[in-house]
């Protein structure tokens, strides 16, 4: 869990000046997002590379209009 002091240090390292009151507001939002992101580890992604090049699914393999 990231504390407000942790966030202040990270912000400093990133060159951002963020008031402590704003960090206090952001902290619980980030904590919830980090928890959600942690749950993503359980998905079967071990063999998958990141989808850097955006490629929508194309079951037909065609570049033009599909059915019908």
């Amino acid at each position, binding site marked *: 869990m990231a504390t407000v002091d942790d966030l202040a240090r990270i912000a400093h390292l990133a060159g*951002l000046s963020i008031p402590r009151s704003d960090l206090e507001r*952001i902290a619980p939002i980030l904590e919830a997002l980090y928890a959600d992101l942690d749950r*993503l580890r359980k998905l079967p992604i071990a063999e998958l590379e990141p989808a850097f090049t*955006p490629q929508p699914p*194309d079951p037909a393999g065609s570049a033009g209009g*599909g*059915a019908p």
Partner: protein
Amino acid sequence: MNDLVYASLAELSARVRTRDLSPVALLDGLLERIERCRALNPFITVAAGVARAQATQAEREIAAGRYRGPLHGIPVSLKDLIDTKGIRTTCGSRILADRVPAADATVAARLRAAGAILLGKNNLHEFAFGVTTTNPHFGPTRNPWRPDRIPGGSSGGSAAAVAVGCGPVSIGTDTGGSIRIPAALCGVVGLKPTYGRVSRHGVLPLSWTLDHVGPLTRTVEDAALVLQAIAGPDPRDPSTLGQAVPEFTAGLRKPLAGLRVGVVADEFHGEMAPDVRAPFRAALEVLATLGLALEDVEFPRAIEARTAAATVLFAEAASVHERWLPDRAGEYGADTLALLREGAFLTAAQYLRAQRVRALILREAGALMERLTALVLPTIPVVAPEIGQSTVMLGGRPTDARAALTRFVRHFNFVGLPAISVPCGFGADGLPVGLQIVGRSNDEPTVLAIAHAYEQATPWHTRRPPEP
């Protein structure tokens, strides 16, 4: 005058082509309309001088027999995030309030080449990072159906302008629903094409993975006409390369009987407001009478997709804004700044995890779309909230308004599938409700055909907001 301001692009185009309607007279009528609708604040810049010169030129060319096609002489507005040569492009921000681009975005250049008249630049949520268009620098855009309500966003000025007759077409952008959300809340058509169908060159990015450019119109046929003009490969946007561009209007009336269409029926349905559920259910009945074979389906890993899409969006947006965040934070609006700062606290490993989840969901969504031609679901689970309202009631619980408005739309940015919102009725307080139709990759023709058949079978696209 209403017959002119609410005429479709197809109708106006036919009259301009046969010289029954002068592009200059059409422009003058719309400029008058914009003036009348000023209180709704759909425009940041009205380009009257440039537009008049272009309309005069179009009139001359058409009189000389040099007709360019259905957009020739037709006024079009652009979300003010799309570069226009010589006309300021603010991105709805104070930071870029005085920026005048030296060149057109590809989409603007294509419209210009098609003979369209640049009517002006539409208001938007600051830097397109939000869904209300309550812009702190240029004022809020108001919903034409009830001015105390938001028009949605981020392309809120575009949707409000089209809904209230300030032009038949606007071009918007959609990173997490920003074309479809305002289209639904304002009762117009909004098309997010397949990822890579329309070039994003010259459009300020919000998220490279999720950004799309597309039209907002009052009819499905008009959306097809505009997409035809702006789609296609552009060497300056690699995501557009390798596509063949079909005839989008040719298939509008193709038979639909027997097509298998999935009704997205997982946790979504339980979290729809009753005044949205009723029009949505009625829309499903219409689609069934059109011959579509409807079946309940689940979108793969909807909850995980939401988390991963938000992570990609926040991280990429923070990267886009690295150039301004350290030194110019005070020039952002409060809500945009807060979201950008959240993105700055995501690690590289978390971002990569989200992109690996995206690879998984792309594969699973591909498998789903092997057996289905399209998906249908509501565009938004609620009608337009009040300006300044931060929560809405969903499933009996107060829910963050931003989360509620993006709930049904964000997934389709994440997997890049084409998706359209069409009007499907009215909910509480006479506010519009949208039906979302999602298709296979690069199969906008079928999405448009289903949307057009639904539109023609229902009266919703003929309803107009109160006169301002």
